[in-house]
C-alpha cells in the first residue's frame, strides 16, 4: 500500500489545479472590473487554500510566495488597498509563478531561491506604497486601525470532530497560525481520552483551550479556523479586561473566565453543511466504464445483425426487444460520454492572458471576445486542443492584426478584435478563431511558397488553395521570426494535432477584413456514427458526418482527365472520384463507379469527393479502437472497429485519404511531388520551421 501522505499529496495537487483555475478565472473577472465582492473572496480563498496545503507538506518556496500573494489579496478584499488594473496585472504574473511553483512541487523539482522574487517584490511594493501593510518574509503584521493600537485578549475553545481529521486538516497547523497572530498560551485537554484498549484511531479525543493576546481582531482568529468551520466546536470569547490585567489572566485562566465575557462565535457541525453536487471520480474508473459501454455497443450490433434475419411475425417480442436494447444502449453511451465531457472554458480561460501578454510585447491593441465557453467536449479534446489553440491565437495577434497606426490608417478601430468561439453543430464541436486584421496576404503567401519550393513558379492556384498553403510543412510568411511565435511550431503541426483528434481545420480570409480559422472536432473519441461500406469483400467504415449523398452515376456523368483521374458531375460541379480499392489496395473490387456506388463525402476545406465503393452495408454506431496500441498508425485510416460479426473493420479517415490522393495525382509542376521523400521534406521543415501568417 502506498504511503498515505502520498495519497494526500495527490489530492492536494488535484485540488491545486482546480484552485488555480478558479484563481485565474477570478483574476480575469477582476481585471474586467467585475468585482462583486465574492470574486475577491474566492480569489483570496484559492491562494489561502494552496498555501495551507503547501504548508502541510512543507513546500516552503510555495508557502513563502503564496503568503505574500495572500497578504496582498487580503488587503484588497478588505478594501485597504484599492483594486487597480495594474495591481491585477501584478497578481496575474504572481499567478503564473504560483502555478509554476505548484508544478515544481508536484514534480518534486528544486526551485531556485530567487524564482518569483520580482513578482514578490512587485506585490510588496504595492503594499508598501499603499502604506498600510508591512510584509516580512514570514511574519505579517497588519495594522488596520493605526490610530487605535491595543492588544486584545481572547479565550478560544477548540474541539475538533473526527471529520476535521478526515478532511486532512491538522490542528498543529492551526495552532501555529494562531501563534503567528500574537502571544499564545495552549492548554491541551485529554480528559476525553479513553483507555488505550478502547481507543479508536479514527476518532477525535483531544480538545484545546487557547489564550491569545493579539493586536488582531476576532475575524483574524475566525479566519484561522475558516477551513475547519463545521468540523469542530469553536468558541471564541473576548476578555474585555484592560491590557494591564493580562498578566493575571495568563496565570489564572479561571479568573479570566469569570470576568466579563462576550461570546463571539459558537459554531457546531451539521447545520450548515453544503450538499455537494459533484463527486470526484478517478479518470481510470470512468474510462473503464467507457470501454465497457463500447463492448456493449459491439454486442448490441451483433445482436441486431442476428435479429435482422428473424421474421418479425415469428418473434415479435424478440425483435422489438432488440430494438429497445439498441435505443437504451445509445442513451447509456451518451450519458457515459457526458461524464467525460468538460466545458471548453478550461482551455479558453488560458487565452485572455496570452492575448494580454502578446499585445504588450508586440505593441498591438487587441480585445479577446469569447463565446460558448460552456460548450462541452471530451476531456481528451480539452487536454490536447490547448497548444494548437494558443498557437493560432498567437498567429492571429502576431501576424493577423495590424499595428494600431496601420489600423487607424485603414479606417478601423485602433483596437483589434479576436473572437474565440465554440459551438455544437451536427454532432461535432466547432471552435473558431476570427480576427478583424489584414487577412491573409495571398501574394506574400504564394511568393513564400514558391521561394520555399513548395509550389512551382508558374502554378495557378485558387484563393482557397493559397490559403491552405500555410498548412504545408516548412512554410512561413513571417518576415522575421519573432520571439512571440518563433517556437518552432508551424501550422502544419497545428493541423496534425487537430487531425490526431479526428478533427479538421479550415481557413477563410478576406483581404483587409480579417481571417477565420474553423476547427471541427468530434464530440467523443470513443464512438461515432458510421456507414459500413463494402469494397471487394472487405468492409470499411465511413464517418457518417462526412457523407453528403450516395448515388450510382450513369456513364454520361463520368469524365476523365488526361492524368487518369475521373470526374463526376455532382450538383452542378465536377468532383473527383476516388478509387478506394486502389487507396486501400483491395482486390476484386468493383472499379466501375456505374456498377458500384459513389459515396459523396466532404473532405478538408469543404472539398467534395466521390468515393467508389461496391455497396453500402448498413449505418451503425461504431466503437473506435486504436490500431496503434498494438501496431502502428496506418495512413488513410483513423482507427478500427469491431463489427457485429466480430470482424475488425477499418475506419476511413477522409482528410488523410484526400491528402494521399492529391499527393498521388499531384501534377509535377504544381504541388510537391511524391518523389520528394518524407525525409527530405522533414529536413526542409527543420530549416524553415517558422510561423505562418
Amino acid at each position, binding site marked *: 500500500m502506498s504511503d498515505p501522505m502520498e495519497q494526500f499529496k495527490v489530492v492536494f495537487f488535484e485540488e491545486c489545479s482546480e484552485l488555480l483555475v478558479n484563481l485565474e478565472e477570478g483574476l480575469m473577472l477582476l481585471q474586467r472590473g467585475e468585482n462583486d465582492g465574492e470574486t475577491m473572496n474566492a480569489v483570496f480563498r484559492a491562494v489561502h487554500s494552496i498555501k495551507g496545503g503547501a504548508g502541510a507538506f512543507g513546500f516552503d518556496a510555495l508557502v513563502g510566495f503564496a503568503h505574500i500573494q495572500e497578504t496582498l489579496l487580503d488587503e484588497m478584499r478588505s478594501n485597504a488597498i484599492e483594486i487597480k488594473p495594474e495591481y491585477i496585472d501584478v497578481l496575474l504574473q504572481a499567478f503564473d509563478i504560483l502555478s509554476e511553483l505548484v508544478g515544481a512541487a508536484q514534480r518534486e523539482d528544486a526551485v531556485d531561491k530567487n524564482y518569483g522574487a520580482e513578482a514578490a517584490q512587485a506585490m510588496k511594493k504595492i503594499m508598501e506604497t499603499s502604506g498600510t501593510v508591512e510584509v516580512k518574509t514570514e511574519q505579517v503584521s497588519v495594522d488596520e486601525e493605526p490610530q487605535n493600537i491595543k492588544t486584545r485578549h481572547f479565550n478560544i475553545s477548540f474541539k475538533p470532530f473526527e471529520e476535521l481529521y478526515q478532511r486532512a486538516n491538522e490542528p498543529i497547523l492551526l495552532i501555529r497560525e494562531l501563534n503567528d497572530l500574537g502571544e499564545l498560551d495552549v492548554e491541551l485537554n485529554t480528559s476525553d481520552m479513553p483507555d488505550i484498549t478502547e481507543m479508536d484511531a479514527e476518532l477525535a479525543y483531544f480538545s484545546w483551550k487557547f489564550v491569545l493576546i493579539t493586536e488582531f481582531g476576532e475575524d483574524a482568529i475566525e479566519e484561522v479556523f475558516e477551513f475547519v468551520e463545521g468540523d469542530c466546536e469553536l468558541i471564541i470569547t473576548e476578555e474585555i479586561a484592560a491590557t494591564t490585567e493580562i498578566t493575571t489572566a495568563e496565570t489564572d485562566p479561571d479568573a479570566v473566565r469569570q470576568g466579563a465575557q462576550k461570546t463571539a462565535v459558537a459554531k457546531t457541525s451539521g447545520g450548515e453543511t453544503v450538499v455537494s453536487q459533484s463527486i470526484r471520480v478517478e479518470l481510470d474508473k470512468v474510462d473503464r466504464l467507457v*470501454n465497457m459501454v*463500447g*463492448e456493449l455497443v*459491439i454486442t448490441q450490433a451483433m445482436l441486431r445483425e442476428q435479429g435482422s434475419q428473424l421474421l418479425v411475425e415469428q418473434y415479435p417480442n424478440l425483435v422489438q426487444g432488440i430494438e429497445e436494447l439498441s435505443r437504451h444502449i445509445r442513451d447509456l453511451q451518451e450519458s457515459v460520454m457526458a461524464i467525460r465531457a468538460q466545458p471548453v472554458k478550461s482551455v479558453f480561460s488560458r487565452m485572455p492572458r496570452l492575448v494580454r501578454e502578446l499585445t504588450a510585447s508586440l505593441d498591438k491593441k487587441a480585445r479577446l471576445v469569447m463565446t460558448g465557453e460552456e460548450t462541452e467536449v471530451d476531456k481528451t479534446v480539452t487536454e490536447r486542443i490547448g497548444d494548437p489553440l494558443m498557437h493560432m491565437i498567437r498567429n492571429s495577434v502576431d501576424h493577423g492584426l495590424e499595428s494600431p497606426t496601420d489600423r487607424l490608417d485603414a479606417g478601423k478601430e485602433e483596437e483589434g478584435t479576436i473572437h474565440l468561439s465554440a459551438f455544437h453543430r451536427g454532432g461535432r464541436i466547432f471552435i473558431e478563431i476570427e480576427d478583424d486584421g489584414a487577412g491573409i496576404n495571398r501574394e506574400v503567401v504564394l511568393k513564400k511558397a514558391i521561394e520555399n519550393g513548395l509550389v512551382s513558379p508558374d502554378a495557378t492556384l485558387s484563393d482557397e488553395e493559397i490559403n491552405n498553403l500555410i498548412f504545408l510543412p516548412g512554410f512561413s510568411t513571417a518576415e522575421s521570426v519573432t520571439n512571440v511565435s518563433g517556437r518552432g511550431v508551424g501550422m502544419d503541426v497545428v493541423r496534425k494535432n487537430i487531425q490526431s483528434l479526428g478533427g479538421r481545420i479550415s481557413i477563410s480570409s478576406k483581404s483587409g477584413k480579417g481571417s477565420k480559422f474553423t476547427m471541427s472536432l468530434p464530440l467523443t473519441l470513443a464512438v461515432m456514427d458510421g456507414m459500413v461500406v463494402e469494397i471487394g469483400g*472487405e468492409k470499411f467504415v465511413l464517418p457518417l458526418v462526412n457523407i453528403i449523398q450516395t448515388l450510382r452515376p450513369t456513364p454520361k456523368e463520368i469524365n476523365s482527365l488526361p492524368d487518369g483521374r475521373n470526374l463526376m458531375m455532382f450538383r452542378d460541379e465536377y468532383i473527383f472520384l476516388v478509387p478506394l480499392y486502389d*487507396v*486501400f*489496395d*483491395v482486390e476484386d473490387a468493383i472499379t466501375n463507379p456505374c456498377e458500384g456506388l459513389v459515396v459523396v463525402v466532404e473532405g478538408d476545406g469543404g472539398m467534395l469527393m466521390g468515393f467508389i465503393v461496391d455497396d453500402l452495408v448498413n449505418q451503425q454506431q461504431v466503437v473506435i*479502437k*486504436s*490500431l496503434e*496500441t*498494438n*501496431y*502502428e498508425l*496506418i*495512413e*488513410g*485510416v483513423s482507427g*478500427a472497429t*469491431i463489427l457485429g460479426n*466480430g*470482424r*475488425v*473493420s*477499418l475506419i476511413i479517415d477522409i482528410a488523410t485519404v484526400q491528402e494521399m490522393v492529391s499527393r498521388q495525382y499531384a501534377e509535377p509542376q504544381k504541388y510537391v511531388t511524391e518523389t520528394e521523400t518524407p525525409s527530405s521534406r522533414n529536413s526542409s521543415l527543420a530549416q524553415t520551421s517558422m510561423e505562418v501568417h
Partner: protein
Amino acid sequence: MTTIVANDTSSDEKIRESAQIRQYISFNVGKELYAVEITTVREIKGWIPTTSLPNSPNYMRGVINLRGVIVPVFDLRTRFRRGKTEPGKNHVVIIVKLDERTIGILVDAVSDILTISSEEILAVPDQDVNPEYAFMEGLVAVEEKMVAIIKPKLLFDMELVPDMDTEIEPEAEVA
C-alpha cells in the same frame, strides 16, 4: 553436447542449479522448429480470418479482434522469406505480449513445451556478421533436431525491420 531436460524428468535438475532454466513453446513453420519463451505467450488460438491493413509489410497479415482488442497478426513464414502461409483450420496464431504490445504470430502448428537450461543454448554462428539473425536468441538441439529460439520483439518491430518489406518482397511474391 546439449541435452534437454524434459518436462517430466527432474533427476538432474539439481545439478543445474546455477544455470537458468526456462520453459519454451516450440512450433513448426514448414519443417523448421522455432521456440519462444513461455512467459511471453498469452494464448494460442486457431486461425481466424484477418482484416488486412493497407500499406503494410507483406509479413503483416492484418488484424484480428481479440476480445475487443485489435491485435496484428504476423506471418512467420513470410518473415523468414519462405512465402506466404495459406492458413487452414490447423494453423494457429500464438499471441505474445511484448512490453506494451500484444501481437499474434501465425505458425503451422504448436509442437511442444521445452524446458531448457541457459547453458544448453548455443550461439547462432554468424549472428555478428549477419544482422538479419538478430532476432534469434540462440539455438538448441532437441532430440537431434535444431530449434531456433526467437525474440518476437526483434522479429516484428517495425522500427527495427523497416525495410524488410522491400528486401523480401521479390521472394515472397513468387510464393
